């Protein structure tokens, strides 16, 4: 029973990271109908920027804020300079462009930061918590991860639901031509959507890098699992992305805990295939089935 609780808590912590990546993918998908395959690479890049800031200042929180700000800027710049050029083109163009970005960013990261795994600091102790003599299997850092993602998701929900910017963002995502007719500067909204996605990706990078170590390819698996979480949630639903991340995190934690860590990625891919085959619209979307 203690083991079960331990795996569950670890799953929630990991699931929150998948949820952050999933949320960033959902933000972009809803706004532009582009699946950003470079989202993991962008998170890796902002994590390297954070690591450089941390080396120079010795302060984790400067690095944390620096990562989020660079995520905002880089995400917005990618939309404005790259993906906007393919927005009204055939869907395959966007796929190729974002895969090209992924390869380009990972290649450049290798050139500038080297290809080795680099350790990454945590803001809180990575030592496991316990109640009396019973180890809980989670750390203060795991609690920070869950809290940070929940806070980010909550803030986003408030912005989207209760502010005029959020209303403009949603209108642009749901019906861009009509939003334009109502005076919404849709170009700015698209850039803002990508910038917010970049921020979420940067957050995910900061949260996951201490456990995966940081290298140019370190976010590839996390991206696939975040994508799986987004698909489970339906790609359209921010709430679905969070729940999808949690489901995936917990399932993979049980799989890793009871069957061995070598099956975790296999289970992640199997979950993606199962959802695409059995319920391609995901668990929380009412949209028609996507072509996959």
């Amino acid at each position, binding site marked *: 029973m203690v083991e079960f609780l331990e795996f569950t808590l670890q799953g929630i912590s990991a699931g929150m990271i998948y949820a952050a990546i999933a949320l960033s993918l959902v933000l972009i998908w809803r706004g532009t109908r582009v699946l950003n395959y470079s989202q993991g690479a962008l998170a890796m890049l902002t994590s390297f920027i954070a690591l450089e800031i941390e080396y120079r200042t010795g302060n984790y929180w400067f690095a944390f804020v620096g990562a989020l700000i660079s995520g905002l800027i880089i995400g917005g710049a990618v939309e404005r300079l790259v993906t906007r050029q393919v927005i009204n083109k055939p869907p395959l163009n966007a796929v190729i462009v974002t895969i090209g970005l992924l390869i380009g960013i990972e290649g450049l990261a290798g050139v500038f930061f080297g290809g080795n795994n680099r350790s990454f600091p945590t803001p809180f102790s990575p030592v496991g918590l316990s109640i009396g003599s019973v180890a809980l299997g989670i750390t203060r850092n795991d609690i920070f991860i869950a809290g940070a993602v929940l806070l980010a998701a909550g803030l986003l929900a408030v912005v989207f639901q209760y502010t*005029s910017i959020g*209303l*403009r963002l*949603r*209108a642009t995502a*749901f*019906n861009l*031509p*009509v*939003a*334009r*007719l*109502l*005076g*919404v*500067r*849709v170009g700015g909204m698209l850039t803002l959507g990508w910038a917010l996605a970049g921020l979420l990706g940067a957050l995910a990078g900061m949260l996951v890098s201490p456990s995966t170590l940081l290298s140019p390819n370190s976010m590839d698996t996390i991206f696939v699992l975040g994508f799986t979480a987004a698909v489970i949630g339906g790609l359209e639903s921010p709430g679905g992305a969070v729940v999808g991340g949690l489901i995936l995190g917990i399932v993979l934690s049980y799989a890793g805990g009871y069957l061995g860590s070598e099956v975790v990625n296999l289970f992640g891919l199997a979950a993606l295939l199962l959802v695409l085959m059995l319920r391609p619209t995901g668990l929380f979307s009412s949209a028609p089935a996507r072509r996959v």
Partner: protein
Amino acid sequence: MSESATLEVREVSAGYGAVPVLRGVTITAQAGTITAVLGANGAGKTTLLRVIDGSIKPSQGQIWLDGANLAGRRPENVSRAGIAHVPEGQGVITELTVAENLQLGLLLRPRSERSAALADIYNRFSVLADRRSKAAGTLSGGERQMLVIARALATDPRVLLLDEPSLGLAPKIVRDVLDLISQLKTDTGLTIILVEQNARSALAIADLGIVLNLGSVVATAPAGQLAADEALRRHYLGF
């Protein structure tokens, strides 16, 4: 409510890619009047409205509103200049609630005016007030048409472009919608350009009628005069 304004379209030509649709179209919609734009399918009526709203850039010509040439401006800037377009097929954002659709329109107004304007809209469109928290996608066809007209009014327009507002509606609802448009002119003094397949009904509430054929203006006359011109009616308007 902003003062209405005269809209002038001068010698506008436009099309889709290399396919010309409008050929040197000139129309003037006087302030505070309803101008009915009529013609068969493919005459260029919807394209004309899309050129005015900025969705299509004209290859030549000008669109004047109060001393400013709007030709070539983006839709969001045309909207901010005071032209509201209710597109064919309604354009309700179905995922938003009725209230959110209206709030989206209100964002073009100063913050201080918004709540009073919303109260006015609910007063005029009581059916929307009753359904304000419902998803717009759950409304009936007639209610959706009310919503998009109300949302256009929420932007505080000076010119209202209506594209086939009766399309797909039951005859009783069509009458209600056309009565509403007529009432809007009386109450607000808006300049309205009405594109309508149902020429007889449109001319009944319009001040001026314009007939398009194959992208060119073939007749411009007071609505009553057009309705009385049997040859023109038979040839171009089908009634």
